[in-house]
């Protein structure tokens, strides 16, 4: 049970770090000049990602991680406590 907890954790972490890489190193640096051809309002898109967008995504990534891991913790570690409570009922 514990090793599958760790495996699920690793999958979550790897996929979130993939998003982290794409929004900063990808959109903000590697493909930034290409994205600059698109404009949202006064922002060139690549410029926006490197000075604004990547930071917003970082915040979203951490809170997604918090949400997913809390769910995972409950599934693997709180279930025994819950069943104890049920037994008492």
């Amino acid at each position, binding site marked *: 049970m514990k090793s599958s907890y760790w495996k699920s954790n690793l999958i979550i*972490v790897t996929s979130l770090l993939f998003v982290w890489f794409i929004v900063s190193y990808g959109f903000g640096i590697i493909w930034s000049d290409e994205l600059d051809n698109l404009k949202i309002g006064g922002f060139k898109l690549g410029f*926006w990602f490197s000075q604004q967008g990547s*930071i917003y995504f*970082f915040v979203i990534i951490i809170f997604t991680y918090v949400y997913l891991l809390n769910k995972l913790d409950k599934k693997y570690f709180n279930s025994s406590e819950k069943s104890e409570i049920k037994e008492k009922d």
Partner: protein
Amino acid sequence: MELQTLTYLFVGISFALYIGIAIWSRARSTNDFYIAGKGVSPIANGMATAADWMSAASFISMAGLIAFLGKDGSVYLMGWTGGYVLLALLLAPYLRKFGQYTVPDFIGTRYYSKAARLVAIICLIFISFTYVAGQMRGVGIVFSRFLEVDINTGVIIGMLIVFFYAVLGGMKGITYTQVAQYCVLIFAYLVPAIFISLLITNNPIPQLGFGDKIAGSSVYLLDKLDQLSLELGFNAYTENTKSNIDVFFITAALMFGTAGLPHVIVRFFTVPKVSDARKSAGYALVFIALLYTTAPAVAAFAKINFIDSVQKVEYQSAPNWFKNWESIGLIAWKDKNDDGIINYSSGNALEGVKPIYTDQLGKHGQRVVENEPNQSNKNEVYIDNDIMVLANPEIAQLPNWVIALVAAGALAAALSTAAGLLLVISASISHDLMKKMLMPKITEKQELIFARCAAAVAIFIAGLFGIYPPGFVAQVVAFAFGLAASTIFPALFLGIFYKRLNKEGAIAGMITGLLTTSSYIIYFKFLNPSFNNSEFWIFGISPEGIGFLGMIMNFIVALIVSNFYSRPPSEIYQMIDEIRKP
């Protein structure tokens, strides 16, 4: 009210608040002193982390740097925020579960080795002192400009305040003071930004404002800025000048360096539960992002305002702030074509870059500098990037209370970071060096006395840095991040995610990272600064980005060496299993 009276008032009230909090929350045990008794709520810890993290450099220098660098400045924005993703996902929850006091504690225990602990202590002290030196310069600038006291007096006042609440309150006092300091600094940063955004674009949200049209015209602010920059001979504001590989490496070195900074990591030791450590990293980034997404807007506004109010203006009718900062020594004007009109364009105005002032005044009333004019360009203005944020409210002609608020905010940013760093230094000396290595028999009470003495000595040394600032502060900041990325981050990360890593591998890795990074930086920054350009750099990586390469070397060496020696003892496997559970 007059600016100086208002500034005294704001700074006085905020200082009184910090001292009050310190008395209310003073530390009674080593547990309180090092990790605030593990009783800090995730939101409060998030604010404290944000204040701890956002230093004088973030508050005072960053926007000015971005204004000067344009899109190249993005490395600081992404680099100094993206590290929190790494912290939250890879380090903070596990280190909190480990549940000890310091970063060397984890490295020493995980690699069952005093040598590993010692390497960690050395890196930590070096990183932290580098950082403290920068804070003290910030305190000095604010005091000398806004309170018109001597820089040295300013530094001493700052040191006394930090001494009071760090030595008395320890981590607990520092945490709650930092919460207050965060509120002061973010308010002080946002208020002028919102005012200026309204003035220039009619948009109250700076993050959107700098992508908006200039009020009363149909031109986008950033387009106008690109056009002005090109006219004055700069590169377009929204385009890179650095190579992609260099930008990539600098960003990575700053991100992994952030995740390896001891004074940031230790903040996550103070929350009650593992899940709180994750949440707390998220809150910290929200609070940090509030300033970091405003900074590029402030940079764009400041640049356009600066050009507007100075370019082609007669010196005698130049705005007051120009002369005020000139008298502090952060602006200089050399009338190259002798027409009495300020001409601002690209290139260094002066030979030797930094102005050397004489006692004389020129025929227009300007301070005369000894430097020969740099005749390769027409620029006549020397401007220190640091004044952009501090002078911005004056440049935009905002009311005096806003200017006073910015002074109080800058002090909050500098003092909160200094206090956090001093605590990490004192903990590593009293706990890691004395208790765990040299004098294991001391009681908790004695350890607490050592901790307080170490904090006092560290504050004294930091004060000396402020009064006699070493000329190399700016150069060594790259050092701090490079070292954190190439030594501490890999040791922590592999320690949690790779059980097979033994002490031989970890120590070899850390030493490799330390040597690669420091020799590269020392070579280009100190021994041969004239070679410091992309022609001579390895793979086109500047010294600022070398920490990332050092980190990769650390990983490779650690994994290879580890395979030649026996597995870590079984207790270590159990310990890692234990910290992997929430």
